[in-house]
């Protein structure tokens, strides 16, 4: 017997939880003791007078029962003699859209609840777009509360047409409208409701039992990401993973992506047997005929259809964090089994959830969707999401909080990585630095405005110059007069500011110089991004630690006074955050040491 995974979604109060409770009740999935608890709860929290409030069966969290809303996706299980069902009951409130996306990402069909009295609402459209974006192909429009509109065919017809007009440009394969009443149980299990003789279609349960979600993964060529390398002893080396598409048999020729190395399947090893064939969706361990290197995140695929690899893509992205997406910032990402860093390099357009219109956007806020360009820090094997969900989906993770902040699907690779070849450089960085008898480095000063960064940096520059070293200072204020004069002080611009400085510093280090960078650089993520541009040991983070009160007392440029008067916006330390380094190479506390002593410490550190 097969399993159908579907979601129910819709707006507030249109009866999702009631509908699911009704399905569980009618398919005899409610046990006696649960029914007793439901009766008691219906009296305590119920909204249906003396009747059973089925919504209370599924709203499981105390806060949900108290507020009478669904906050998080709930998974329910029921079965009929024809099929087994996993239903994800997803919340309607906009603020919980990410929970709805969680449920939708693994669903094969969607039940969109509509209150017959209200018709197609913004929420319905939002949920439809997310369902379509995540690749759900079959939707049923469950037009609920028909009892409240006198079982009117006209109301049903109007809503059906409205939705079809709206969904025209969404990629649903089938749309089925069913008029029903979850409260009364009409058209939920049995079809042919006496009150609606005009409706000849199936009941909701009949639809769920018969909808055929095509599983593209079954017919696609074989591909499996390596999830875990199984090497219990020297005589066994297997590549474990879940087959993303197609099927595989011993003897099949395979090619690894991205390395391009070829081999042959020697055996499919599973508990207790040597399998002769494994299919899409199965977790297996593959043994290859040759001793080759593959690690987690590589993809094993049939040689007939090798899996491509690239580092830059166009993608759709759903943002799920209260903190806005900052283009240029480095985030962590997971695509199938491959962990990488990812940067959103360009927001091509944001999607208006109601009209489908393309809007210009500089950043992306909670629950917003956009088409973007993304750049991974390494080449990743992939397939477009429309072809292969497992190889084309990724999540975006904040590097500091580790929260999951975005979910993306890949459209196609931008061929830039292939087209823009690096110029092969024959005289190396080491050779250039050796000529000057120095080690090329980037000394990165960070600290509040007025903390003494520039003072210390200038003294250090003189000191190193006197010692015959070739140095160069990149100073925040100076660079902002030229290279970065198009940038302001918003969070987005600050990120771009640091990105450019990092790149310039990298070129100078490549030239063999000791580069002294003196920038407030308030965010850890961007300093980390700069650090990642360099080789280990090249980047030296120097934290000039002066308390805010002291900086404000000195106020050499009079900026703090201005900021306090509200004449200067986004001033670090006043109305914009400074994230102090956690493990800088050097931590200079200026209250305890004069600038000369600080310089001494740096020189001492560099000699080690």
């Amino acid at each position, binding site marked *: 017997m097969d399993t159908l995974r579907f979601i129910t979604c819709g707006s507030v109060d249109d009866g999702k939880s009631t509908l699911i409770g009704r399905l569980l009740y009618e398919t005899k999935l409610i046990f006696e003791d649960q029914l007793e608890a439901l009766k008691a709860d219906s009296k305590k929290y119920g909204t249906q007078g003396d009747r059973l409030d089925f919504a209370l069966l599924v709203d499981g969290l105390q806060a949900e029962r108290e507020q009478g809303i669904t906050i998080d996706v709930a998974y329910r299980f029921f079965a009929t003699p024809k099929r087994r069902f996993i239903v994800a009951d997803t919340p309607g409130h906009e603020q919980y859209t990410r929970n709805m996306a969680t449920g939708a*990402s693994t669903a094969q069909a969607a039940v969109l609840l509509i209150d017959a009295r209200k018709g197609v609402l913004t929420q319905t459209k939002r949920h439809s777009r997310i369902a379509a974006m995540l690749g759900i192909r079959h939707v049923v429009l469950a037009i609920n509360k028909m009892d409240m509109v006198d079982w009117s065919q006209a109301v049903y017809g109007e809503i059906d047409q409205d939705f079809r007009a709206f969904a025209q440009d969404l990629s649903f394969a089938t749309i089925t409208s069913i008029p029903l009443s979850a409260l009364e149980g009409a058209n939920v299990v049995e079809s042919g409701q006496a009150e609606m003789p005009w409706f000849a279609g199936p009941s909701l349960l009949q639809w769920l039992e018969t909808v055929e979600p095509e599983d593209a993964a079954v017919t696609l060529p074989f591909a499996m990401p390596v999830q*875990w390398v199984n090497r219990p002893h020297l005589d066994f080396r297997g590549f474990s*993973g879940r087959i993303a598409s197609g099927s595989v048999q011993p003897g099949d020729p395979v090619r690894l992506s991205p390395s391009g190395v070829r081999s042959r399947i020697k055996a499919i090893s599973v508990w207790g047997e040597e399998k002769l064939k494994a299919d899409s969706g199965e977790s297996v361990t593959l043994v290859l005929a040759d001793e080759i290197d593959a690690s987690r995140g590589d993809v094993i695929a049939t040689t007939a259809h090798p899996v491509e690899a690239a580092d830059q893509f166009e993608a759709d992205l759903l943002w799920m964090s209260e903190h806005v997406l900052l283009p240029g910032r480095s985030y962590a990402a997971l695509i199938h089994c491959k962990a990488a860093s990812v940067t959103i390099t360009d927001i091509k357009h944001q999607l208006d959830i109601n009209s489908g219109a393309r809007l210009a956007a500089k950043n992306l806020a909670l629950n917003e969707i956009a088409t973007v360009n993304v750049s991974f820090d390494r080449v990743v094997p992939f397939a477009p999401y429309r072809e292969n969900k497992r190889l084309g989906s990724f999540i975006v993770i904040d590097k500091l909080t580790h929260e999951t902040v975005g979910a993306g699907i890949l459209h196609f690779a931008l061929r830039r990585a292939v087209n823009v070849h690096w110029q092969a450089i024959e005289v190396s960085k080491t050779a250039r630095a050796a000529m000057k008898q120095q080690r090329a480095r980037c000394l990165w000063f960070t600290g509040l405005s007025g903390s003494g960064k520039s003072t210390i940096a200038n003294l250090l520059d003189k000191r190193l110059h006197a010692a015959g070293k070739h140095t160069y200072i990149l100073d925040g204020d100076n660079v902002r007069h030229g290279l970065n004069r198009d940038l302001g002080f918003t969070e987005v611009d600050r990120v771009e500011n640091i990105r450019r400085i990092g790149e310039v510093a990298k070129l100078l280090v490549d030239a063999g110089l000791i580069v002294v960078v003196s920038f407030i650089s308030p965010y850890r993520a961007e300093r980390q991004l700069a650090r990642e541009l360099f080789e280990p040991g090249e980047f030296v983070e120097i934290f000039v630690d002066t308390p805010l009160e002291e900086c404000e007392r000195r106020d050499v440029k009079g900026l703090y006074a201005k900021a306090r008067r509200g004449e200067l916006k986004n001033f670090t330390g006043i109305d914009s955050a400074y994230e102090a380094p956690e493990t800088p190479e050097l931590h200079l506390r200026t209250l305890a040491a004069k600038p000369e002593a600080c310089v001494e410490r740096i020189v001492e550190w560099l000699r080690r």
Partner: protein
Amino acid sequence: MNPIGAFSDLESESIEIFREVAATASRPVMLYSIGKDSSVMLRLAQKAFYPGPIPFPLLHIDTGWKFREMIAFRDRIAEEIGCELFRYTNPRGAAEGIGPFTHGSAYHTDVMKTEALKQALDLHGFDVAFGGARRDEEKSRAKERIFSFRAPGHRWDPKAQRPELWNLYNTRINPGETIRVFPLSNWTEADIWGYIQQQRIPIVPLYFAAPRPVVKRYGQWIMVDDHRLPLEPGEKVETRMVRFRTLGCYPLTAAVESTATTLEEIVAETLGATTSERQGRVIDHDGAGSMERKKQEGYF
């Protein structure tokens, strides 16, 4: 009740979850409670890493009130599989003699299970703990992610769960945070029994009906597993043909009258059951939302 489904999908999903943790966690552990769900979880872990051994230890939180047959079964299985097994009992609870009769079921569970679990995880520095919870068991569990994050102090915040899309599990945590991982999230009770039957997975004999000494208390059959069960006035020990649908501390786990002595009979009985398995769990009746509250405090 669900008919027996195809297990291939469920099995593959659980195996994927085990491997994801093995590939990303620094010190994972499997909570082993000796029950039927733990037995299935253990078999799935063996399959996930076959032909290698299970690459993490088992941890049993021993409240001191488990059925004696459970303890004997635990030791036998751990030895057969060759798995490292940690046993842990809350030393404070043991010293103060905390038990369900003297201190009440709620307090006993708090100290000997919830507090003990947190102590054991901290003691060994485990960052990820597998648990056998299923979403069909209880309402707050139906809302929980497969990878469930715990703030320092092991607290669960149901309102701040991470989105969990596709099969992409974000396993990154900050120091002090931990993850509870539930590989059996999408299994139902019928799936568990069907799989045990199909795979011939060994389970504690208490699941099979046998004549056992029991007393009737609050309308439920409680087994007299040892001399520590104080008899109330009017209670008398009888021998009845009973079995257990779920196993925990013996004073807190009620038996059902049954004649099912084979796996086939158990499965048939489960499919026809009219009450949920947790009905035999005395602690679930402590109040509405009691499972959610216990979970927030760090209970599995």
